């Protein structure tokens, strides 16, 4: 027998629902890196780093 007070019945019902949900969670969404996006960023960053310096007029 529960020792919880009768006036907390609503809270108890709500907690029961929450407990049941917490005990049966669905599988979390996977968090993947988008390979194409990463590759694009890598290429842009690489191109920026490897490009020759901007030509400047000779004095």
């Amino acid at each position: 027998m529960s020792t919880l007070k009768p006036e907390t019945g609503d809270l108890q019902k709500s907690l029961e629902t929450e407990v049941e949900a917490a005990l049966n969670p669905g599988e979390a969404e996977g968090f993947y890196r988008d390979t194409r996006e990463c590759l694009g960023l890598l290429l842009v960053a690489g191109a920026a780093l490897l490009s020759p310096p901007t030509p400047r007029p000779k004095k």
Partner: protein
Amino acid sequence: MRNLSGAVCDLASEVVSVLRDGGHRAVVSPNGQGPDAELGVAAVRVLGADVLLPSTLHRHPPAPSDLQLVREAVRTFPPGGDASVSTEWSHWAMRDALRRHDPAAAAPRPVAAEPVGAEPVGGEPVGGEPVGGEPDTAWLSRLTWQELTHQLAVLGALAVPPAVTGPSPVVAAAAPRTLDLARGFVRAVRRRDWLQAAGAGRWLAVLDSDATPVPATLGLETGLEFVLRMGGADPRVALHAHAAQLLRAGAAG
């Protein structure tokens, strides 16, 4: 009033702390009366038998206040008629932990095949709640390796060595699928699902044996360290990962 997930995380954090300290003090701080006390009991029900994990792994008697709260959680949140198998097994594990730790409970372990919630089948009441039989484990063998990993991670509190707790039907049912679980561990890490990865890692730490070896190529120790580093901010992840590391280190062997 706090929410349930916050209370569960707070409780998991306490368990991790006691687990790392050697299990010599109470896990749960008394909340007195009122909504916080009820929330505390609900959090104990969600965390399940893991509330007593420090005592189980370090082989110390649990604090009477911890036992009392676990008893209260078992009584207050029994599995209903339409409860899922995870809820039933979680409840079973709590009752089993109480039976091991509570000197007042002299009843034998439930071994009959009656479902939880049916009439008691030979066990005596533990702390006032009826003792039913074991829920079914046949469903485990029907799951794909992805589903198996998810379900076992949800039931992470049942991942304790039989040498410490006695035979466990879920451990026995999971043991032949160590390779599937190893694949699931890798999948969870790649998906960055740290809670599932930590739960799967804990199961692998329990199941690794000569008969059902975890592939050496998995690098479980390194994997657990990585999971702890990446997801350890979540106390539930830290709990499973620390438990797995303790098991790998032979603390509960």
